[in-house]
C-alpha cells in the first residue's frame, strides 16, 4: 500500500467477482437481477410511459398539443422564469462559494447549513412563505395592492418561488471544489500584481468551470421542472401565469391525457438532456466534481 500507484491499480480488480472474498456467481446474479428489476419498475417504466402516452394519438395530435397558444405561453413563461432565476442563483452561488471556500470565519458551518435549508423545506411551503408575505391577505398585500403591484399570481411570485427552491444548487457544487483547490494560485497572482477581478476571471473561474456548469445544469433542471412551489404562487391563469409543469397538471386534470403527456414529454426530454450532460461531466471531469456525488 506504500506504492503510490497501487490504489489506482486495485480499483478495477475490485469488480472481479471470482476472488475468494467476493460473492458467488449466483448471489451476484440475484443481486444484479433485483437491482435491475427495481430500477425498471420504479424509474425506467415511468420515463418510457411519458413518451409512449405522448405518442399514443400520433404525430398530428402531438404537434397540436405543444403548439396551441396556451402551451406555447407556458413554454415561454418557463423559459423566462429559468432565465432570471438561474443567473441570479449562479451569481449568489459563486459569491457564497468565494466567501466560504477562500476565507476562515466564525459561523461558517451555520452559514453552510442555512444555504442548504431550502432542500429540507417542502416545495409547497416554499411557495406558501411568499403568499404569506405578498398575497392579498399577506403582510405586504394591502400596500402592494394600493400601489398596483402584483407579486402573487404574477411573474415576480413565480421567480421568487423558483429562486427559493433552487437556491443551494450552484453553491453546494462550488464550495467543496473550491475548498479542495485552495487559494495558492490566487495568492501568487495577487502577489505578482494582478487585479482582484483579473484573478477571479483568469484563475478562479476557469479552475472551477466544470463544477460551476454542473451546478447550473442541476439548478436549471429544477427551475424548469419545479411544480409545488410554483403551483402555490401561480394562480394558474392560462396563457399568463401557467408554467409547463402547471400546464401539464391542468391538462391531466381535464382528462386531456395525451395532450398532458405531450407537454410532459418536452420536460422529460429536458430531463434526459440534463442527465446525459451530467453523466458526461462526471465521466470526463469526475475529479473536479467528485464532491457533488454526495447529494
Amino acid at each position, binding site marked *: 500500500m506504500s506504492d503510490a500507484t497501487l490504489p489506482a491499480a*486495485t480499483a478495477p480488480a*475490485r*469488480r472481479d*467477482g471470482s476472488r475468494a*472474498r467476493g460473492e458467488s456467481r449466483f448471489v*451476484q446474479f440475484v*443481486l*444484479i437481477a*433485483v*437491482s435491475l428489476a*427495481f*430500477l425498471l419498475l420504479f*424509474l425506467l*417504466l*415511468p*420515463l418510457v*410511459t411519458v413518451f409512449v402516452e405522448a405518442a399514443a394519438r400520433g404525430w398530428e395530435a402531438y404537434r397540436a398539443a405543444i403548439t396551441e397558444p396556451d402551451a406555447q405561453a407556458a413554454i415561454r413563461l418557463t423559459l423566462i422564469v429559468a432565465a432570471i432565476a438561474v443567473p441570479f442563483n449562479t451569481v449568489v452561488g459563486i*459569491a*457564497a462559494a*468565494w466567501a466560504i471556500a477562500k*476565507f*476562515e*470565519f466564525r459561523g461558517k458551518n451555520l452559514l453552510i447549513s442555512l*444555504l442548504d*435549508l431550502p432542500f429540507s423545506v*417542502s*416545495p*409547497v*411551503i416554499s411557495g*406558501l*412563505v411568499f403568499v*404569506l408575505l405578498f398575497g392579498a391577505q*399577506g*403582510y405586504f398585500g394591502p400596500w402592494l395592492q394600493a400601489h398596483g403591484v402584483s407579486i402573487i399570481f404574477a411573474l415576480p411570485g413565480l421567480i421568487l418561488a423558483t*429562486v427559493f427552491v433552487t*437556491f443551494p444548487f450552484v453553491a453546494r457544487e462550488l464550495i467543496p471544489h473550491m475548498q479542495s483547490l485552495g487559494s495558492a494560485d*490566487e495568492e501568487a497572482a*495577487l502577489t505578482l500584481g494582478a487585479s*482582484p477581478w483579473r484573478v477571479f476571471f483568469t484563475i478562479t473561474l476557469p479552475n472551477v468551470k466544470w463544477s460551476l456548469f454542473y451546478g447550473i445544469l442541476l439548478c436549471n*433542471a429544477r427551475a*424548469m*421542472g*419545479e*411544480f409545488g412551489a410554483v403551483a*402555490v404562487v401561480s394562480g394558474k391563469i392560462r396563457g399568463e401565469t401557467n408554467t409547463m*409543469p402547471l400546464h*401539464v*397538471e391542468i391538462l*391531466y386534470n381535464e382528462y386531456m391525457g395525451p395532450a*398532458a*403527456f405531450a407537454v*410532459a414529454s418536452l*420536460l*422529460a426530454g429536458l*430531463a*434526459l438532456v440534463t*442527465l*446525459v450532460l451530467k453523466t458526461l461531466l462526471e465521466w470526463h471531469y469526475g475529479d473536479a466534481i467528485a464532491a457533488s*456525488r454526495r*447529494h
Partner: protein
Amino acid sequence: MTTTASFRWREPSILPGFGLAMGITVTALSLIVLIPLAGLFVKAASAGPADIWAVATSPRTLAALRLSFLGALFAALVNTVFGLILAWVLVRYDFPGRRLIDAAVDLPFALPTAVAGISLAAIYAPNGWVGSWLAPLAFRFTIPFTDVSIGFDGKVAYTPLGVMVALIFIGLPFVVRTVQPVLEELQSDVEEAAALLGANRLRTVFRVILPPVLPALLTGFVLAFARAVGEYGSVIFIAGNIPMVSEIAPLLIVIRLEQFDYAGAAVMATMMLLISFALILAVNLVQARARRRFGDV
C-alpha cells in the same frame, strides 16, 4: 476591530472580496430564504393558542401528517434496502450496461415531479400497465381470534400505497448517491483479513463491511425521508387525495391556502417544518457519535 488578538471574527487573508461576497450571500439568503421563513413562523404564532390547537389537533390535519410521515418512513426504508443493494451492485460488480444504470439512478433528480406524477398515476391506475396486472392479486386475511384483517385489494393508485410508490420513486437516488462513494473508498484489506481469519462471506458483510457504511446509509435514509415528507408533485396525481385516507400534508396546506385560511396553512407548515428539523437534528447527533467511532465518512 481585528487589533485585539484574543477575538477574531475572521482569519486575515490577502485575498480580496470577502466583504462583497459575504454581503451578496447574506443579503440574498436573508431576503429569499430566512425572512420569508421567519414570516411563516410569525404568522403561525400570531394565530393564537386556541386556533393553533384547533388546526393542530383536527382529525384531518393529523391524518394528513400521519400519512406523510409514515409514508415517507416506509418509502425511505424501502429505498435504504434497495439503495444499498443497488450501490453495492454498481460498485462491486461488472455487468453490461452498468454505467448506463449508474446514470439512470439520478432520473428522479432530473425528471420534473409533475411529469413523474402523471406517469406513475397512468402506470398504476386500475387500467394501467402495472395496475391492471395487480388487480387479480387482491387478497384479504383476518388474523385468527382478532378483528384485525390485513390485505391488499388490488389497487395501488388512489390509495396510500400509491403515495408510497411515488415516494419510493423520488427518494431512491439519495440513498444510492450517499452510500456509493463510501463503498468505493472501502479498503479491501480488512475484508481479506476477515476471510483469512475464517469468517464466512455473510459474516464479513455484516461485521466488517456494513458497520463503516452505516453512517452514510443513515444519511441517505434521512435525505430520502426528508424529501419524501414534503413531496407534492409526484404524489398528488397517484394519491387520489381522499380526505383522511390518501391526502398528504402538503396538499392539505394547499387546500387551506385556497380557502384563504392563511393561519391554518401556516400552522400546518410550521408543524411539518418543526417535526422535520427535529428528526434531522436527532439523526445528525446519532451520526456525530457514529463518526467518532468509525472515522470520517
